[in-house]
């Protein structure tokens, strides 16, 4: 049972994700928010956060793993790859969308799972890749989240999920919808095992991802100014037929309305993560 992704790895068609990563081309990067120009190296060293205006550029799993893990980490379940079972064709076939996305990203699908140490605390991090078909949730995303839960239970680990997704993957139709049910169901097992589940929402987190595992954390946290919602702003605007207020569906808006525990800057993320993990995992002193 081979897949195109795997065959192409074997044929050496895929470059490593490192060479292909979405790092802005050339030596200079212009902030999409404040238009300040910095070197790509400076941006990288600042965790892809604008030095001037604190704009959090979108990054994917590889960058988050580099930021959060103490060096070495192990990728899990990368042998699970997507398949076009329905033969779905719109203006393009799903099969070719998968192939293109794999070629462009060097990734098997829209989520990567890593296990390693965060300031010495062993932890599993599942992180979505927005560059893979808009970070859409299909069967592979659902399955990898479920296996992550199982892994955490087996090895008694805390779980961090970094969401970044446009929602369900339409080309998998009801199979993608049911990933909402599947992941929520499996997360009940993690809860039963008394292990912490931290959900970090990043720009953007919308649709079925928000309406399932992204909102089910023991704590739900977010990066600053991330778009987080159920319906997309365009759909809402069309429905209510008026402009949306400034800051609508941004992290700060959600915090204000009581749907986030806190907002965390990418630069403090590792520190905060270690701290809350300790709170969850520390054994109380014997009395």
């Amino acid at each position, binding site marked *: *049972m*081979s*897949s195109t992704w*795997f065959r192409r790895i074997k044929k050496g068609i895929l470059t490593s994700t490192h060479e292909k990563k979405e790092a802005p081309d050339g030596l200079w990067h212009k902030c999409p928010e404040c238009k300040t120009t910095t070197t790509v190296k400076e941006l990288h060293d600042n965790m892809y956060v604008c030095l001037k205006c604190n704009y959090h550029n979108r990054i994917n799993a590889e960058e988050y*793993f580099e930021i959060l893990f103490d060096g070495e980490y*192990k*990728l899990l379940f*990368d*042998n*699970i*790859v*997507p*398949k076009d*079972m*329905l033969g779905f*064709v*719109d*203006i393009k076939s799903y099969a070719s969308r998968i192939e293109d996305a794999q070629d462009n990203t060097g990734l098997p699908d829209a989520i990567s799972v*890593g296990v390693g140490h965060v300031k010495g605390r062993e932890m599993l991090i599942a992180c979505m890749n927005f560059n893979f078909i808009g970070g859409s949730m*299909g*069967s592979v995303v*659902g399955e990898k989240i*479920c296996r992550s839960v199982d892994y955490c239970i087996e090895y008694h680990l805390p779980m961090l999920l970094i969401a970044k997704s446009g929602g*369900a993957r*339409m080309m*998998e*139709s*009801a*199979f*993608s*919808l*049911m*990933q*909402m*049910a*599947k992941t*929520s*169901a*499996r*997360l*009940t*097992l993690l809860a039963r095992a008394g292990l912490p589940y931290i959900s970090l929402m990043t720009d953007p987190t919308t*649709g*079925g991802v*928000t*309406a*399932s595992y992204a*909102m*089910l954390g023991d704590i739900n946290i977010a990066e600053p100014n991330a778009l*987080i*919602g*159920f*319906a997309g702003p365009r*759909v*809402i605007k069309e*429905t209510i037929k008026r402009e*949306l207020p400034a800051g609508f569906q941004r992290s700060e808006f959600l915090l204000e*309305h*009581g*749907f986030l525990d806190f907002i965390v800057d990418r630069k403090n993320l590792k520190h905060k993560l270690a701290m809350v993990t300790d709170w969850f995992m520390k054994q109380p002193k014997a009395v």
Partner: protein
Amino acid sequence: MQFLDFEKPLEDLYAQISKLKEMSAKNQVDVTKSISELELSIDETKARIYTHLTPWQRVQLSRHPDRPYTLYYIEKVFSNFTELYGDRQVKDDKAIVGGMAELDGMPVMVLGHQKGVNTKMRQMRNFGMANPEGYRKALRLMKIAEKFNRPIITFIDTPGAYPGLEAEERGQAEAIARNLFEMVNLKVPVICIVIGEGASGGALGIGIGDKVMMLENTWYTVISPESCSSILWRSWSFKEKAAEQLRLTSEDMNQFGLVDGVIPEPLGGAHANPEAMAAIIKEFLISTIQDLYKFDAETRITQRIEKFSKMGFYDEIEEEEKTEQSA
């Protein structure tokens, strides 16, 4: 009676029957024979039309203006219904209704999306599109049912959760997510039936159960064919094509194992004979609840988790073939 495009041959036949009846009343002629011939012809036409429906025609049937909604089934299938209102936090959402009822003498909790039956009611019911309060009311009712060991029945019929400004402010996503998580662990039997439209998270938000069924002429998937067309084809005019590609019919969903079964509709669809449809649902519910009570709560929950865990398709490359992936 209202007729969809592909139901037009029936409209003519019904018109002929009423004309004959009128004539016989006026002129005292016996038209019994002609009428029974026409009725036979109606049955044949129905059999021809409804056994060869395209996915898009099924979608149209699921939205048929004469199709029964949740409150109709509540009235016909159950007795002693007491509606319960409100989420105890913000307000009462009219797009989801529910309450205490008895099914063949057994106390149950029944709830579902409710669409309006006329223009005014459609607005009042927000076209069956619930706000977070609807999902939270539903969960509140389900928790009461759990506490008193009453089975839960949900009827699904929604074009989607409401994409409004206040819905976002009050946490539409959180409300749906919470329901998914909580419904998985309900200790009582839960039966969900798609009676019309099963659109996306708005449907799933009351759709986690031991038995998830679809009536024959309903659809259930991640997005409506219209929205799918507009997003993937970048045009509203590919809804028929989208309906085909999405494989959203009860037949497909059952074949994929994404629902537990299909409940057949009377010939001509639920709207052609609502009473018969209600009777079929009633019989199904009574026997299914009995079956579900043969398992203890823990077994039912485990089976629920296992059932949803199996959903999905992917390839799995054997470990030893895999290239070194350590970073």
